[in-house]
């Protein structure tokens, strides 16, 4: 069920009405649980069974970890949980990718092996809910939290419908405490939640799908050489599209959760105003980057074991972060490119530690623009379905096709230019604050007007909008 669908509007209205209409806390949690499984099952009912089985398994493993005596036994149960979750992910998401690469590898030593193509349907949101669930057993193992005694609460924490299929990756440790006592009804929280949902839908339907998606699709789908202007505009269109698409989903999720009295953390914090790549990853898909930091980078040693080891750890994390997004080498290159950016930044920071001029605004602005351009270059690999397309795009961007084609209409160019300009401007204006603080500072008439305009634009744009990009991950 998509947030940007009529089915969701009706579903959400029914759930919210029933939820606040019920007095007792346990029946309300039961209602949310059933609603979450209906939300998920509306895609493909059998996958709801898969979701439940992996969740129930982690619940049981969490209890075993807590009860195990001795570090070794705890480690064994934690490893079982990691293996179970990653093997599910591996089978559904990486099965064919692994077979194809195995085929390629054995062909290098002269063995001709023709693997069967596994006709596997990817369960929607499997990368997200696997991480929701895995965070629980890992936190119990780390001693950060005690296991919950309620299977229902844990299943609800993993499957809570606002964040189930495309994040934010909500850790059990952040959500389970909110299931202890019922939230009190608060009109302000509820209506602010509705405003956030409107903002998220506006980002997705109007900005991502209407203003940018068509241009990005045409540019990346064009089979011939393109001139530099069209190539760059195509990449900028995708940079904006993926931000508005994914941040829009996260904002909707946060808003929907607020309407039900739950608090989810930010997943984006004005990333295109990042100064440097560490800053970018502290603003982009924050729930994934902190997950990788806490459960991978730090356990690998982080930066505690010297610069060399830190560099290796960064590259490992970004390699796996890239692969998490999809079973293709283009995603790996995207991750490694970001890993390289981070390494260069680390080394530069070590060299320029004492440079006061680096803290002046013009230099920060320049570094911010360099960051944006470098991030755009990395998006080429993320968006391209193969390296031929990526190479053609990069060649076009750097003037390799002097006599290439121009395929964007003037209107499309204006849309990309204006949306990108105002997006970056907004990110810079808001980079050191939060949406809540910014809204609080605005005059009431402006908040009212902006909300009404966004709602009108959504209604005007209506129709069968596209699925969210991150659903495929």
């Amino acid at each position, binding site marked *: 069920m998509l947030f940007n669908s*009529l*089915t969701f509007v009706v579903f959400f209205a029914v759930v919210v009405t029933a939820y606040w209409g019920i007095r007792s806390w346990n029946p309300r949690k039961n209602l949310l649980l059933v609603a979450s499984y209906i939300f998920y099952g509306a895609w493909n009912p059998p996958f709801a069974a898969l979701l439940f089985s992996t969740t129930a398994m982690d619940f049981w493993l969490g209890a075993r970890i807590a009860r195990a005596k001795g570090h070794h036994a705890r480690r064994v149960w934690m490893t079982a949980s990691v293996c179970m979750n990653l093997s599910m992910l591996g089978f559904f998401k990486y099965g064919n990718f692994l077979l194809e690469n195995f085929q390629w590898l054995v062909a290098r030593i002269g063995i001709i092996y023709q693997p069967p193509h596994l006709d596997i349907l990817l369960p929607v949101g499997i990368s997200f809910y696997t991480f929701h669930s895995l965070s629980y057993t890992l936190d119990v193992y780390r001693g950060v939290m005690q296991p919950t005694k309620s299977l229902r609460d844990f299943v609800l924490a993993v499957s809570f419908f606002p964040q189930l299929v495309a994040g934010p990756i909500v850790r059990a440790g952040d959500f389970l405490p909110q299931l202890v006592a019922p939230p009190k009804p608060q009109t302000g929280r509820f209506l602010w939640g509705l405003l956030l949902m409107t903002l998220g839908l506006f980002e997705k339907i109007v900005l991502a799908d209407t203003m940018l998606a068509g241009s990005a699709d045409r540019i990346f789908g064009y089979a*011939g050489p393109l001139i530099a202007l069209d190539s760059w505009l195509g990449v900028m269109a995708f940079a904006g599209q993926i931000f508005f698409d994914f941040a829009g989903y996260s904002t909707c999720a946060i808003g929907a959760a607020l309407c039900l009295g739950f*608090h989810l953390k930010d997943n984006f914090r004005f990333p295109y105003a990042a100064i440097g790549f560490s800053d970018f990853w502290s603003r982009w898909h924050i729930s994934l980057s902190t997950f990788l930091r806490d459960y991978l980078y730090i356990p690998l040693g982080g930066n505690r074991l010297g610069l060399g080891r830190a560099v290796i750890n960064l590259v490992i994390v970004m390699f796996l972060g890239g692969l998490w997004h999809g079973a293709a080498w283009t995603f790996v290159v995207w991750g490694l490119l970001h890993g390289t950016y981070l390494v260069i930044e680390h080394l530069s920071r070590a060299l320029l530690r004492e440079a006061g001029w680096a803290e002046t605004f013009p230099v920060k602005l320049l570094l911010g623009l360099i960051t944006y351009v470098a991030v755009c270059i990395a998006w080429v690999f993320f968006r391209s379905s193969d390296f031929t397309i990526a190479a053609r795009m990069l060649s076009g961007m750097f003037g390799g096709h002097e006599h290439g084609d*121009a395929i964007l209409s003037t209107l499309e160019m204006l849309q990309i230019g204006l949306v990108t300009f105002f997006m970056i401007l907004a990110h810079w204006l808001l980079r050191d604050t939060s949406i809540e603080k910014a809204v609080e500072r605005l005059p*009431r008439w402006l908040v009212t007007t902006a909300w*009404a305009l966004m709602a*009108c634009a959504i209604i005007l744009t209506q129709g069968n909008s596209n699925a969210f990009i991150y659903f495929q991950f």
Partner: protein
Amino acid sequence: MPSSTSSFERKIPGLPWRGITVIVVLTVVAAATAWETYVRSIGYGPTLNSTEDLWADARRAVQPESVVVIGDSRGWFDVDLDEFEKGLGKRPIQLAMGGSCAYPVLADLASDEHFHGTIICSVVPRMFFAPPGAPPVARAEKAIRRYRTQQLAQRASQYLAMPLEEHLAFLKQEDLTTKALLDDLPIPDRPNAQVPPRLPSYFGTVDRERRARMIERCAQPGKLQHTIQQRWLRLFTPPPPPNYVPKQVFMENMGKAREARFVDTIKAVEKLRARGGKIVFVRFPVSGELKALEDRLTPRADLWESLLKRTKVPGIYFEDFPELSSFSCPEWSHLSAGDSVEFSKRLVPHLRTALQL
């Protein structure tokens, strides 16, 4: 050890939310009402949107012995389901789509082991022989994909949308969305920009059976009719071969794609007939400069005659029969709603003969 690790709480901006919400709701309702009033005043009326979900609904309605209309927009606008039902004894299912190639739907029905009914296939050569990946083929394939993979939530959204679309004119997706309104802005393109032509704007309505009817404003001479005529000319004029493929190679590839379509169609027809299914190709009326353009670019002997000869499928070409060729398409490509009824009535005897009913 705590059983919880976080007591995170989002800040809620301290604003008078009740008052703001009331004003927003009133503003949105007022704006929607004003917009609805305006679009009705310029000629729009409520109609269902022709979506893949609506098509999937119709495809699901196909029974083993159904009569099915497939193909491009001429088979969609020019067929009256009531007249076909009267003449053929069964109410046809309308699966033709605007700007689409008939072949993917023909192949889909031919591969459906349960189906052994009758196919009435509209053929506009430029659409029917469109190469793989071209928009006419992609449109048809997208609809078929939706039929095969449609989720419960998508079906529910379609059922919820229909009553709204039947009452609100501004929900016309093809014309009145933000994107369509922006596309209508008179902004000139770069001289060398290869910008694809747009499909014509509002000229029809669609009901729950996917029966399409031309609106009266389009059937009458005027600005709308003229605009649509000019858009057809641009759409039906082939774009120049792409710069990145040598012209000779491009033409060879087009030839190969055309031959492959012949071969694939023959296979699909044989498969359908092996199960007792029937098929007839129909060339619906076309008029004015568009007819001249089509006759020049896709001569009858090259494609239509070859298609009938190679597939051994009976065909009805509107020009061959005085009672069918006397119709004029107001915007050159489709019949008016009224004419489509009369045309269908006159077409039925020819269909019965061709299908040996």
